[in-house]
């Protein structure tokens, strides 16, 4: 198993030790210890990846069975780990970005009472996420899948005394359970047909199969439901926005960089299945595109700095699924990587801002912070440029790759949406940037106390900022690196990176620039209030995410409530029936008792009655009376 187990176990060890000995540990130790472990497993991951790279043969896979998970019906299901170039990418991002965010958190959480608990959860999350990507079959993947859900539940509800946080946590967990069930059903379906859920086994089977049967559509769709819930695709997206109740590093790590992209991982991992399920495949792309533009529109007028970033995350996830939909797998992975860089950077920077403003998140209270926190501003700017797709920043390349392949594969409509969304992205990101760092401060008091974050926080931010700038350079490497992973089984026709038509690029960039200018004019020159445009029709709806929460209440929650009430009535009747029956027999007895009148002659009469009856019966039976 060449070190996979160690990579897995180290974070778990961290979580366990911190939980067990948090009482004994000095104040700073948990953070340092946790970060150290993650960093070590980052190094181990690098080694493991090198080992994968140096593997001979066509497919570069390290795999092995730890133990039998369950046996007894059909084929045994093993507890199998599996490392190939695809999971290697995730491995690196998870541990690398994870390590940075751990370090950042040391500073960010330094004065929080629950600090050890926080780092234990964080380590536990890293472990679960690694389990997810290192899983060798769908069951193990599902275990990791659910455990990251649990981790995010714990971390969203980290400040458990905030009712909003608790509610958000529950919402996230329940919606993710929906996803888990989807995967569960999907893998059960696959198991029935292929008597196994291990990747190599399944892929072998897929590569011989003919596309287009309902079975493939269903299994692919069920698995996609899982991805949907985890990656917050429309209509299962609400939990992600609410998840911002958690501490900012959590938002950066879980709800931007890693966990929410698990769906992307699952879909890219199962690309041979997508080939067999064309309808679902198209659906993925369409929903992805819609999610992208929908989220972008919602992000337009958000008032909360983290909300904006959350919806932008949604939008970027939409891009990734769009990429999957047009089977631009490498591009999606590429975008996932760059997105991990710049979005983590954005969140951490936002975190520094919030930290600097002692917990203030409302854009209405910010402004003009550039002078106060230059480093943060610089990296935030870099990341903003990256996400807006301004060349030569990283975002440009990855987004370009996705759009280009969308165009090449003939999905012109999706392409159009993508391009337009790119423009919107540029607008709301720059709006955010301007409202935060430029213009004149809207809350002087806060502004006066604002200060640059300590080094332990700034350094990770800057590193990520740099990555956000240069991340595009990894494209070529990634292309080569993933080629074996996608070449192994049929179905990845356009997996490799392709460049789109030139005019596409021009239009995209032009839109971005225009959006930049508009934002600049509106929010720096005119310095419009953040609230502007949220009163009347479109803006209002955009601000409230088009009222999707209400829709959910209307079509899902309330009907269930009604069913519950009906069943409550049934229950009352059942219980009443039981007691009623007993009471009925009892009262029957009490009514019958007076038959015993106490008069001897009545008793004699009853004897007489019995005697006559018996006599008559016998005489009838022998046919004397007939």
């Amino acid at each position, binding site marked *: 198993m060449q070190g996979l187990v160690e990579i897995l176990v180290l974070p778990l060890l961290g979580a366990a030790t911190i939980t067990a000995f948090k009482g004994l540990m000095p104040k700073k130790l948990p953070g340092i210890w946790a970060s150290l472990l993650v960093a070590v497993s980052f190094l181990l991951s690098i080694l493991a990846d090198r080992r994968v790279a140096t593997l001979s043969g066509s497919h570069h896979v390290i795999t092995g069975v730890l133990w039998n998970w369950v046996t007894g019906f059909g084929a045994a299901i093993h507890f199998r780990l599996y490392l190939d170039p695809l999971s290697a990418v995730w491995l690196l991002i998870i541990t690398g970005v994870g390590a940075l965010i751990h370090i950042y958190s040391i500073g960010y959480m330094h004065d929080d009472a629950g600090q050890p608990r926080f780092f234990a959860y964080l380590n536990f999350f890293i472990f679960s996420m690694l389990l997810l990507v290192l899983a060798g079959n769908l069951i193990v993947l599902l275990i990791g899948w659910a455990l990251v859900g649990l981790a995010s539940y714990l971390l969203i509800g980290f400040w458990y005394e905030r009712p909003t946080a608790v509610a958000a946590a529950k919402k996230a967990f329940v919606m993710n359970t929906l996803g888990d069930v989807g995967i569960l059903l999907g893998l059960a379906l696959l198991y029935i047909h292929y008597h196994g859920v291990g990747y190599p086994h399944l892929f072998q089977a897929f590569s011989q199969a003919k596309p287009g049967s309902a079975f493939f559509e269903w299994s692919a769709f069920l698995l996609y439901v899982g991805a949907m819930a985890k990656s917050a695709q429309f209509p299962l997206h609400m939990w992600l926005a609410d998840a911002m109740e958690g501490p900012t590093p959590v938002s950066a790590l879980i709800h931007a960089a890693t966990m929410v992209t698990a769906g992307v991982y699952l879909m890219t991992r199962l690309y041979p299945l997508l080939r067999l399920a064309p309808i679902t495949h198209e659906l993925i792309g369409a929903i992805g595109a819609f999610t992208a533009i929908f989220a972008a529109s919602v992000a337009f007028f958000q008032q909360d700095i983290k909300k904006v970033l959350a919806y932008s995350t949604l939008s970027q996830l939409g891009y990734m699924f769009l990429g999957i939909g047009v089977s631009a797998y490498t591009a999606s992975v590429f975008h996932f990587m760059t997105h991990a860089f710049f979005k983590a950077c954005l969140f951490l920077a936002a975190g520094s801002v919030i930290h600097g403003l002692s917990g203030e998140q409302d854009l209405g209270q910010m402004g003009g912070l550039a002078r106060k926190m230059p480093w943060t501003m610089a990296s935030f700017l870099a990341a903003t440029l990256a996400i807006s797709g301004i060349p030569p920043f990283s975002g440009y390349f990855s987004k370009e790759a996705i759009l280009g392949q969308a165009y090449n594969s003939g999905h012109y409509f999706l392409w159009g949406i993508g391009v337009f969304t790119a423009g919107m992205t540029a607008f709301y990101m720059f709006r955010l940037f301007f409202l935060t760092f430029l213009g004149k401060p809207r809350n002087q008091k806060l502004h006066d106390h604002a200060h640059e974050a300590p080094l332990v926080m700034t350094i990770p931010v800057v590193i990520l900022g740099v990555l956000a700038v240069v991340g595009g350079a990894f494209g070529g490497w990634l292309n080569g690196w993933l080629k074996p992973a996608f070449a192994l089984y049929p179905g990845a026709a356009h997996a490799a990176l392709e460049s789109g038509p030139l005019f596409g690029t021009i239009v995209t960039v032009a839109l971005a620039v225009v959006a930049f200018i508009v934002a600049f004019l509106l929010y720096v020159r005119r310095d419009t209030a953040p609230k502007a445009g949220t009163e009347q029709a479109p803006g209002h709806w955009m601000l409230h995410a088009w009222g999707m929460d209400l829709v959910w209440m209307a079509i899902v929650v309330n009907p269930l409530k009604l069913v519950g009430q009906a069943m409550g009535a049934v229950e009352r009747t059942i219980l009443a029936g039981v007691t009623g029956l007993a009471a009925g027999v009892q009262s029957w007895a009490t009514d019958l008792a*007076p038959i*015993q009148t*106490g*008069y*001897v*002659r009545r008793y*004699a*009469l009853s004897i*007489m009655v019995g005697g006559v009856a018996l006599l008559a019966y016998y005489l009838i039976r022998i046919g004397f009376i007939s």
Partner: protein
Amino acid sequence: MIPLNDVVGLAAVIFAVGAVGVLVRKNPLVMFMAAEMMWNAAALVFVAYARSFHAMTGQVMAFIIIGTAAAEVGIGLAIIVSVYHHRHRLDIDEVSQLKG
């Protein structure tokens, strides 16, 4: 020579009359007499059949019945006396405290 089955029929009637007596009379003594009458009817039947079978077992049975009746009457009257000693009326329906 008298018709045996008619004797049995007569016994049946006496038996029924005795039963009626037990059912309708309220005086415990009279009820008891009626019961004795039922026994007598039975004894009569035994004797009659003994005659028809030329076997004396029936007569033995009748004799046993008479003897038993004597003993029973002794006990019965003693009980009735001990129960009705302090009561003013010989009414069986007064003795109905135990019920339900």
